[in-house]
């Protein structure tokens, strides 16, 4: 290729550049910095509250990446994400807690169970589109809730069950990490575990998105019949997207259960599904980066509101406290508002804002 004409900035010249995993050198530097920050952060921020907020955000980011593959890339609306997350948590309770398997194995078991459940639900997406699928998956949440409340052997009924899955890989226990004579707290170990998994799953999702399956998924999203005509097996990709998405959701659920150590059926309600939808809408539909961004912003909100409820006017910080709105109701209202405001004013989400800012500087002074 002729190298004579080289633009003085990083413009995309051919298709292979568009497919690069880590765009420009600048993006690579940024990513490196982010990784270093994640490695160092728990040693700087040792406060348990902030670490736990970040851990929950990381777990939420994993689940959100799963939902974004299904909804953002493949265009299948699912209100049933909470069901798969719940299933994952109970898998962790069984495989990690009662059977005492090590971390990689109970994560794997959860992922497999999630994939199987997704494979069972997926075929519905073949017959039903858009509205119907949303309502079917809504039904899934309610049927799931009924199951969780009645399968007392596994879930402990309404009182919930403790999840005793340990974060151990061989001799290393991430719950009580000791490295070069330093001992680290449970939260520090979990922070590294969760965010490494976020990175791994983001890489997986990004690789799905930028290769042939990703292009097929987007073709199915934009018009499934047109996709069939150009040779994409729409049915196969829809079911596949459901399986991958629910496997990732189950991993997030397993991590959630194992970190929290106790789960009740009240956690897997419609509100959780809505929270995930709010996350991918706020973060940006059809971007892996957006899922993580959204999870950090929206996923951290409930914990922050709970912590600082006494400083927010009008919020009752305890049942029966004064204030006109409870913490729960406030969360609900915020998720709802975020969904409406972003869909009306910024449908591409935070990632869209970021892309616009980036494009502005990249094309400066010819920005428009």
């Amino acid at each position: 290729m002729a190298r004579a004409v080289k633009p003085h900035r990083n413009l995309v010249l051919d298709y292979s550049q568009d497919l690069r995993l880590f765009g420009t050198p600048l993006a690579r530097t940024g990513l490196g910095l982010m990784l270093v920050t994640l490695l160092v952060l728990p040693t700087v921020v040792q406060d348990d509250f902030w670490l736990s907020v970040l851990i929950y955000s990381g777990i939420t980011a994993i689940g959100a990446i799963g939902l974004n593959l299904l909804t953002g890339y493949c265009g299948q609306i699912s209100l049933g994400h909470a069901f798969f997350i719940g299933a994952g948590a109970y898998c962790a309770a069984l495989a990690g807690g009662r059977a005492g398997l090590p971390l990689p194995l109970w994560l794997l078991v959860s992922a497999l169970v999630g994939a199987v459940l997704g494979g069972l639900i997926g075929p519905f997406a073949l017959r039903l589109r858009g509205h119907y699928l949303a309502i079917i998956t809504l039904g899934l949440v309610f049927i799931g809730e009924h199951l969780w409340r009645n399968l007392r052997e596994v879930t402990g009924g309404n009182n919930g069950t403790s999840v005793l899955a340990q974060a151990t890989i061989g001799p290393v226990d991430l719950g009580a990490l000791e490295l070069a004579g330093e001992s680290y707290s449970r939260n520090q170990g979990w922070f590294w575990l969760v965010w490494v998994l976020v990175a791994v799953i983001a890489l997986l999702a990004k690789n799905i998105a930028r290769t042939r399956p990703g292009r097929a998924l987007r073709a199915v999203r934009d018009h499934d019949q047109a996709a069939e005509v150009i040779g994409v097996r729409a049915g196969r990709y829809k079911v596949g997207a459901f399986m991958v998405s629910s496997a990732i959701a189950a991993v997030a659920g397993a991590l959630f259960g194992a970190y929290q150590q106790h789960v009740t059926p009240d956690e897997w309600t419609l509100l959780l599904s809505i929270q995930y939808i709010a996350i991918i809408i706020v973060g940006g539909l059809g971007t892996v980066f957006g899922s993580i961004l959204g999870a950090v912003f929206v996923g951290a909100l409930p914990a922050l509101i709970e912590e600082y409820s006494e400083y927010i006017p009008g919020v009752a910080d305890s049942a029966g406290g004064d204030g006109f709105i409870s913490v729960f109701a406030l969360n609900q209202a915020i998720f709802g508002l975020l969904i409406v405001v972003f869909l009306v004013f910024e449908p591409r989400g935070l990632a869209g804002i970021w892309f616009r800012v980036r494009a502005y500087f990249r094309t400066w002074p010819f920005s428009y």
Partner: protein
Amino acid sequence: MNALLTNVFAGLALGSTYALVALGFVVIFKSTGVINFAQGGLLALGAYLGYTFAGDLALAFGVAVVLACLAAAVAGASVERLVLRRMVGQPPFAVIMITIGLLFVIEPLITAIWGFHTLNVPNPWNIRTVEIGGLVLGVRDLWTIGLTAVVVVGFFLFFRYTAFGLAMRATAFDPEAALAQGISARRVYAVSWAIAAALAALAGITLAAGPGGLSPSISFIALAAFPAMILGGLDSPSGAVLGGLIIGLAEALTRGYQDQLFSWAGSNVSVIVPYVLMIVILLIRPYGLLGTKDVRRI
């Protein structure tokens, strides 16, 4: 036999409520192509407004019902005007999510205004019963069934014989052709939302006047009306009524025979019966009992 009849009667009353809500879904879906998840919020709003009119302002119950339906209709039309109109032409995903977002905004608003407590709406029905042929029937249930029947008949007459009903049917059939005939699609959209909200409010008040009283969880009834709409077919008003009655019957019968027949399925299995029924129907007839199969083009 009497037990069975009592259950069937309870099912019809519950089914009437579902039918009202499902009818609202269908009205909005037919004219605007939107599935309105916020219907539950409008239902709760109507019920609470009914409480305010009948309780706080001590109006006659009948007046309170009419006022609450009107107020809910205004609320529905303003939701359409302020939010949904901006979403015309957007993909279904965005529109569905907008209505879900609205539901999650309306619910906390209601708890913020009226609180979490169970309220009692002053009403002439309460837990009074009448005995007909050895059968003990709740007065409220009778009124619910009667009111629903009247409203449904009125609804079909309106669509069949009035000019505006014709305009709405025309817009549902082909918005552009309707526009070309000088029909204001905007007014049709706003009126469909108003009608749906008024139907939901009526369902909400008749529910709230029952023995359970009025609590924020009342909006969940609208989610259970989705299966009714799906069962009957998304675009069929008569299907919505039929679906509502079937779902109501199935739920009431499951509840009535919970101990004898359904103890294996866990407690409160009647709550998920609508969804199970919906899934089965969708597998057999994806477009519902009376719905039309949609034709797709590339």
